[in-house]
C-alpha cells in the first residue's frame, strides 16, 4: 500500500458526502448531513456522485423476492387522485442534471410547466443534443401554442457572431423555422397553429447556427448543432 500525500486528501465536504453515502455517520451528524443535502445543491451533488461510485457494489447481493403483500400495501398507501400538477412541478428536478448552471432558466421552465399544467394541457419535451452534449431542453405546449426552450450545455457549442435558431421538423417533412434562441436564458416562442399541429411525438426539434437575425431563406443555412425528438411528458 502506498502512502498518499496531503494533496490527495478529500476536502471537508467530500469527506462528509462520502461518509454519508457510505452510511458511517450517526444521529446528529447524519441528520446534519441530510439537512445540507436538502439546502445545498453542490453538497447534494457530491453525495450523488458517491452513491454512483459505491452502488455497483450492491451487485454482489443476491436478489430476494419480497412477498406480494408488500406491493399491495404500497398500492393501498398511494393517493387515489393522480398527482399530475404536483408531479410536473417536481419533475423539474429532472432538468437539473441537464441544464447545468441554468438555475434561473430551470425556474422559468418550472413556472411555465406549472401554469401549463393548470390548464390541463399535455406538454411535450425534447432534449436537443449534439456533439455529446445536451444543449437545449424544449417544452412544447401545442394547445397553448407556446414552446419554452432552456439553454443547457449550449455555451460549449456557441460560435461568436452566430445565433442558435430552432427548427421544427415534422415526420417526413422539411425543417420549419420556429424562432431564435438565447445562450443564457429561457426563451418562450409562440407556436402558430400551422406549426403547433405538426408538433407531435413524431416530430423532431433541431438547432442550427445562423447569422444574427436568423436564416433569411426559411431553411437552415448554418450547421445543425443538435436535435431531439419530441416526447409526451
Amino acid at each position, binding site marked *: *500500500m502506498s502512502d498518499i500525500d496531503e494533496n*490527495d*486528501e478529500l476536502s471537508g465536504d467530500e469527506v462528509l458526502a462520502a461518509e454519508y*453515502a457510505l452510511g458511517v455517520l*450517526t444521529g446528529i451528524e447524519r441528520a446534519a448531513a441530510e439537512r445540507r443535502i436538502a439546502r445545498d445543491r453542490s453538497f447534494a451533488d457530491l453525495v450523488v456522485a458517491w452513491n454512483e461510485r459505491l*452502488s455497483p457494489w450492491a451487485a454482489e447481493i*443476491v436478489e430476494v423476492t419480497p412477498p406480494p403483500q*408488500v406491493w399491495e400495501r404500497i398500492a393501498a398507501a398511494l393517493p387515489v387522485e393522480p398527482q399530475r400538477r404536483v408531479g410536473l412541478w417536481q419533475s423539474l428536478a429532472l432538468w*437539473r442534471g441537464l441544464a447545468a448552471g441554468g438555475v434561473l432558466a430551470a425556474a422559468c421552465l418550472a413556472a411555465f410547466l406549472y401554469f401549463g399544467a393548470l390548464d390541463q394541457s399535455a406538454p411535450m419535451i425534447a432534449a436537443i443534443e449534439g456533439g455529446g452534449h445536451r444543449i437545449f431542453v424544449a417544452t412544447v405546449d401545442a394547445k397553448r401554442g407556446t414552446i419554452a426552450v432552456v439553454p443547457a450545455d449550449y455555451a460549449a457549442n456557441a460560435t461568436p457572431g452566430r445565433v442558435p435558431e430552432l427548427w421544427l421538423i415534422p415526420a417526413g417533412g422539411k425543417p420549419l423555422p420556429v424562432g431564435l434562441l438565447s445562450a443564457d436564458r429561457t426563451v418562450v416562442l409562440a407556436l402558430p397553429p400551422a406549426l403547433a399541429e405538426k408538433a407531435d411525438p413524431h416530430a423532431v426539434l433541431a438547432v442550427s447556427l445562423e447569422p444574427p437575425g436568423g436564416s433569411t431563406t426559411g431553411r437552415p443555412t448554418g450547421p445543425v448543432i443538435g436535435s431531439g425528438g419530441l416526447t409526451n411528458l
Partner: protein
Amino acid sequence: MDIESNRKLLAQALVRVANGDRTALQTVYRLTSTKLFAVCLRILGERAEAEDTLQEVYMTVWRKAGQFAPGMSSPMSWLIAIARNRAIDQLRGSGQRRSMDPIEVAAELPDDAPMADSTLQSVQEQARLQTCLDGLAGHERAALRGAFFDGNTYEELAERMNVPLGTMKSWIRRAMSKLKKCLGP
C-alpha cells in the same frame, strides 16, 4: 431484456412516477424490488423489518422521483441509495446493533458470488469498482464492506475491527480518497 433497455425502461418509469403515475411505480417495483429487498434484508438481517422498510423505500420513490436527475445518476444507483438510507435509518432508529461479529481481515470474503447481478447495473461499472477495491489495503476494504453491507457506523466498525475510533476514521477516509482517485471524478 438487455441491461440498456431495462435501464432505459426504468429511467422512463421514474419520470412517469414523478408525474404521479401509479402504474409507473408498479413498473419500477417490478424491475427493482428483488434487488432493493435484498439490500434491505442484508442491512437489517430480519425479514419483517426489511418488508416494512421496502414499503417505505417505494413510498420515498413515489414522493422523490422528481429529484432523480438522469444526467447525474443512473436509476439503479439512485434507488439503491434510497434503499440503503432507509434501511440504515431503520437500523439506527431501532436502537439495535446487528452484524457485530468481529471482522477478520484475512477471512474477508465477498458477500456472495461477485458480479452476480447484471440485469440493471452495468458490468463495466461493477468491474471498475472491483478493480479499485482490490487496490485497497485489506483492512480498508474490510471496513468499507462492513459499512456498505452491514450498515455499520464508525464506532461499530472500530469495535468490530478492534481499533481506536480515530484509526477507523482515518482508514475509511483514506480508503475513500483512494477509491475516488482510482474511479475518477
